[in-house]
């Protein structure tokens, strides 16, 4: 995205954070630079989504630690409400960084180091760089292996399932009983049972709860 000098071409930001002080710091830091304008503030992910619906900003800056932070990023993506999502947070564990990156965020900024210069960091993101605060890069690497393994195992297990077993797995995820599954698929409960037995073997689990949990951890089904 090109950012012009004139206010008319300024990149418009919305900031979501639980603390007014942080929102204020972002506003001041951005507005000290030409071409960055904070058009809205919110104290939760859902409030931010409402503002984005109305104002259609270019950039959302939010704390992934907000109770609905992750859901908000998903919604921003699904509804294509903004061009760029930047995380600004205190969370420095690798799992949080990987989760954010999987959701396609363009920046992962840690408050303690990034806040004093947050405007300039956001500008770097707008200029096309994916900015990840140096102190979390190592933690992200540590978690990258687990993520790659999960992705690989997920696709291997997925490839081993028959189309029918995949259907049954989806229905288990929806919480249907065996009888309901039989009705939905137009087959006998006994047949459903046999599909489930094979499915459990392939997932290497013994119970329905384990099956759901394993399928979620392998990314085969999503629970929202």
């Amino acid at each position, binding site marked *: 995205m090109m950012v012009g000098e004139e206010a008319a071409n300024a990149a418009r930001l919305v900031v979501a954070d639980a603390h007014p002080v942080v929102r204020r710091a972002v506003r001041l830091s951005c507005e000290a630079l030409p071409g960055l304008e904070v058009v809205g503030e919110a104290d939760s992910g859902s409030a931010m989504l409402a503002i984005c619906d109305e104002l259609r900003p270019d950039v959302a800056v939010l704390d992934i630690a907000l109770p609905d932070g992750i859901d908000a990023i998903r919604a921003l*993506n*699904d509804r294509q409400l903004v061009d760029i999502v930047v995380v600004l947070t205190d969370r420095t564990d690798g799992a949080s960084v*990987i989760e954010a*990156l*999987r959701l*396609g965020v363009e920046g*992962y900024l840690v408050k303690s180091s990034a806040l004093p210069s947050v405007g300039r960091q956001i500008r770097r993101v707008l200029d096309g*760089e*994916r*900015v*990840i605060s*140096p102190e979390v*890069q190592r933690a*992200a*690497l*540590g978690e*990258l*292996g687990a*993520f*790659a393994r999960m*992705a*690989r195992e*997920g*696709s291997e297990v*997925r*490839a081993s399932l028959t*189309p029918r077993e995949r259907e049954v797995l989806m229905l288990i995820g929806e919480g249907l009983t065996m009888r309901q599954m039989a009705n939905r698929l137009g087959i006998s409960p006994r047949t459903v049972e046999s599909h489930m037995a094979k499915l459990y073997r392939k997932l290497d689990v013994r119970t329905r709860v384990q099956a759901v949990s394993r399928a979620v951890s392998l*990314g*085969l089904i999503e629970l929202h």
Partner: protein
Amino acid sequence: MSKRPAAGHAAGPASPRRLGVILVDPFPVVRAGTRLLIDDRPDMEVLAEAGDADQAIEAIGRVRRTRVVVLVGLGLTGEHDAYWLIRTLRQRYPTHAILGFGANADPTSISRALFVGADGFVDKNIDPVEFLQALRRAADREMVLAIPIASAVGEIVEGIERRREVEVKLTDREREVLVVAAEGLTARQIATRLGVRERTITTHLARIYGKLGVGSRLAAIRMASQSGLVSVGASE
């Protein structure tokens, strides 16, 4: 150097704790240079070298050691390319550390290597000390990513996520359609190629867009390309 056999040089049993490295790269000069660097260190040695995947499988089969690191040059091509080799080794030797090895590899190639089972990636451009340290860390079961630009982790994660989405969400047939679509064929041409009706292809394409959450064929192909499922020449 030249007196050593190209592959299968077995290590003596004198130092079982030493880290054993297996070098797989199509370029002899790269292997020779890397070997010099490794054999110069007291705590590690090169156990075998191979110039292609099949030689590598054979050489690794003769190695009786723990604490083994296999360096796989991503430049291996052909039917048994680097990714095939990594996947195969991962299945056969779950305890060997496997590292992708390349020069200025793009994040997509690195993602692909990790996705198929590599424990990390080492760039040929990094400092030799850092390179040797990466081998030791890999032998200690650490995930290693020794690349000039650490922030590329973002692109690498995205590449793996795309690959996962493409592989988990699409059926085999849909993937096949997407691969052919990436060649730039029309729906009619895809239908002819796959021996089905044009209508079937447009249905497949619509379903693919829905599953990948994209609005156009171009966006779907871009996603498949980021995932490493297809390689799109100049446009990427």
